[in-house]
């Protein structure tokens, strides 16, 4: 069965980096480490695991970074090759999970159940007992053992040689704890947005927004828009300002709850106006209480530091790589800069809830399936990746693979 596979090939990674640096993100899929090939369905690693046949699988910014050959080397030890990418997955459970005696494993899902995959490969899927402190606390995104256990290294399905990934007709395997049934009311497009929205939910809650805070979100791609929606629904900011490069992104940001959506270069001025700050050394004297970076570049991080108030908080949601930053202002203004990766469970009031459960509510309320701009079959992966790499420029947001061959929706955009 067909699947897209990323192999460890330094020449191909180098070629991808070179081509994408000239042609832009997503332009190197034809010569990079990704290839369309026939694969066998991955073996079930153990009890409690189930096969999932993907229906839709998104192309994420982290996927693009890998295919462009510009991922941080930090990830070298926590991925395993070859792997099938695709960690934003809505699919269908293929068969029942059975124990050693052939009996169904409690807590597993019935075949045919439509599910989304929570791809982080924490201690439980890895069979690690006792689990690490983060997993024990429900914060599986912070799992300390993603390179260990009975699975090959891989921080998530879609980066692990043993599990398969979403960009595959052969399917993937996931532990029962990683599967979430999708409510009937959500379409497949909605469902494929649950994983990125879970990241946004985690970030919105990590931001620790106090009622009335001024919050600025930098970035208008999938991460920026889902974060905007999550902030609007899960917090009560006094003002929610978004910096998004393209007009359709700004329109969507407004629809999703931004009080103001402007181009990124206008965002600092918009924050200054609202905060009635002064400017000094390129930094606002006051600024936003919280700035959420949904880009992850040196420029975006610098801009966040410039527009956050002293003792404010910068939440880094967009995946950064090796970056050169002037941190003098962070030190001098006692700014907190925190990362927000993935999900697990969140404390809301006195209770803990799975991030995916909250994300489903956000997706449903904000109708985030509308962010899916185009579907491609695997065979057209070069077009799909190129479309994803230039999504903003082409008026798109989320590009997904569809495992059944159909005409791509909006692929001409």
């Amino acid at each position: 069965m067909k699947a897209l596979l990323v192999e460890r090939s330094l020449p191909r990674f180098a070629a991808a980096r070179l081509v994408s640096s000239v042609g832009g993100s997503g332009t190197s899929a034809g010569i990079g480490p990704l290839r369309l090939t026939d694969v066998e369905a991955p073996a079930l690693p153990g009890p409690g695991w189930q096969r999932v046949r993907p229906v839709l699988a998104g192309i994420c910014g982290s996927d693009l970074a890998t295919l462009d050959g510009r991922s941080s080397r930090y990830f070298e030890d926590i991925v395993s090759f070859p792997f099938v990418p695709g960690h934003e997955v809505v699919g269908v459970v293929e068969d029942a999970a059975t124990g050693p005696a052939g009996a169904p494993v409690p807590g597993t899902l019935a075949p045919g159940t439509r599910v989304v995959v929570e791809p982080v490969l924490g201690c439980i899927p890895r069979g690690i007992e006792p689990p690490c402190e983060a997993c024990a606390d429900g914060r599986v995104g912070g799992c300390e053992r993603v390179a260990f256990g009975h699975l090959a290294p891989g921080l998530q399905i879609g980066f692990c040689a043993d599990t398969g990934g979403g960009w595959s007709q052969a399917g993937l395997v996931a532990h029962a704890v990683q599967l979430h049934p999708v409510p009937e009311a959500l379409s497949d497009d909605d469902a494929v947005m649950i994983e990125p929205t879970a990241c946004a939910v985690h970030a919105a809650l990590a931001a620790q927004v106090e009622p009335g805070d001024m919050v600025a979100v930098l970035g208008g791609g999938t991460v920026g828009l889902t974060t905007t929606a999550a902030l609007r629904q899960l917090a009560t900011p006094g003002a929610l300002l978004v910096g998004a490069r393209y007009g359709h992104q700004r329109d969507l940001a407004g629809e999703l709850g931004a009080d103001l959506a402007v181009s990124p270069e206008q965002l600092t001025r918009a924050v200054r106006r609202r905060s009635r700050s002064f400017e000094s050394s390129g930094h606002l004297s006051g600024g936003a209480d919280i700035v959420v970076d949904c880009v992850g570049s040196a420029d975006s991080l610098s801009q966040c530091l410039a527009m956050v108030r002293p003792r404010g908080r910068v939440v880094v949601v967009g995946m950064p790589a090796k970056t050169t930053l002037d941190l003098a202002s962070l030190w001098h203004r006692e700014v907190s800069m925190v990362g927000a990766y993935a999900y697990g469970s969140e404390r809301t009031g006195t209770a803990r809830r799975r991030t995916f459960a909250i994300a489903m509510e956000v997706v449903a309320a904000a109708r985030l399936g509308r962010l899916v701009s185009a579907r491609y079959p695997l065979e057209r992966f070069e077009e799909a990746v190129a479309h994803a790499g230039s999504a903003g420029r082409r008026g798109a947001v989320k590009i997904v693979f569809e495992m059944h061959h159909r005409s791509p929706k909006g692929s001409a955009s």
Partner: protein
Amino acid sequence: MSPRPGFVLEVDRSTPSTLFWHGEGLRLERLPVGSRVLYAPEPLDPLEDPVTAIREALLHPLGDAEPLPALLRAGMKLTIAFDDVSLPLPPMRRPDARQLVIEQVLDLAAEAGVDDVVLICALALHRRLTEAELRHCVGDRIYDAFEPQGLLQQHDAEDPGNLIHLGLTDHGEDVEINKRAATSDLLVYVNVNLVAMDGGHKSVATGLASYRSLRHHHNARTMQQSKSFMDQHKSELHTSNWRMGRLIADSGVKVFQIETTLNTDTFPPQMRFLERREWEWSARDRAGYIATSATLARTPDRLARQVLHSVRSPYRLTSVQAGEVEAVHAQTTENVYRQQLVAVEGQTDILTLGLPYICPYNVNSIMNPILVACLGLGYFFNMYKGRPLVRQGGVVIMSHPTPWAFHPGHHPSYIDFFEQVLAETTDPLEVGKYEEAYATDPWYVHLYRTGHAYHGVHPFYMWYWCAHALEHLGAVIIVGGDRAAVRRLGFTPASTMADALELASDVVGRDPSLTHLHSPPLIMADVS
């Protein structure tokens, strides 16, 4: 030979192309047969001996004023206020008219033994001048004598310690002006009256005022009722300033007004073709045009801007009036009209304008889109007496590159106004809801007081200046402008003049009349 008056040309098939300014560039446009082109009167003969003329004016004042020497005495407190570099345009060659006048006033003050003298640049809410600009206005001798001692000041409309509230007019308008000026025994105000709007009671009531005072007449409603603000007797802007000026006088502030007028000798000899009528261009003029336009077209914008802003105009004084404010201003206005007025029969469907690189608010700076709008719809549109050149519901076509570019040091609040306010509305009445926030923004106040920034509220004033035109016109088209910037202004972009005329036909029909204001040099249309 006496200078020729202004002229209205009717374009026929043999008429050469018409010169248009296009920001830092020049263009030749072929206007439709039957179009009218308004040419400025030739420069009036200047005063042969301006120094003597100034002295005569000071000694023989107009109205019920006493001669200046009679007003000067030892031990008195004398303040001399003068206009800033927003005029004349381009800046005139040294010596500037202000320098010539102030030197004479100071000579008389010295003869009278006056030693408490302060010079104040009447900025209102304009940006502070640089040292070079101040030196240009008053000359090196005065600058060096006064500035180091803190006696050459720039009005600070945000300095509560140096403002005084003189009261309310009978229309409830606050009158708050510079305290040093108001509490002096004599306030001498030195004007350069480039256009008919300048001078009169507006000099003190606006130039030395605070936002609290200015807001009463610098607003959309006042400007909509100023038809035009170049015609004092039909200008609500002036009516309000006159009320304030009379209250200032009634409060005991003694003002000795000095007003000067200039001829229209606007450009140096190598650019003289800009002042000539195209069919009269000599071979040298044509060569000048080709060389200038080709050079500017190949020069990076920033460099072209620097070159053009270094142009110094050979303007010469045509008159000096001194004495009581209203008597002085009446005479001055006549002299401005004598130089600039051109009789025009009837209105037009389409008015075309070639906008140059400079307006009152971007001297040594960038002409940002808001200033483009203000120059075209505020100033040029209002250069009329009687009726607007263009009919109600007509179209103005302006030629300017209109870059989405701002000088961050000079126009910081303009950037915000463009990004925030005009993104929401271009209605001059509606933008006012943001005015207070901009006027009181502490960052803008800081930059106005300590840097070289226009006051935070200033872009609103620029937009209010357009209010009469925006209410009057059916459409505004900008040829060759940055499309995004033009649209943000609420106008229609066009690539060429031909495209603009096509677009205009949707508003004014297929066979419209067209008039081109061939300016600068400055022209004021007297429309019957």
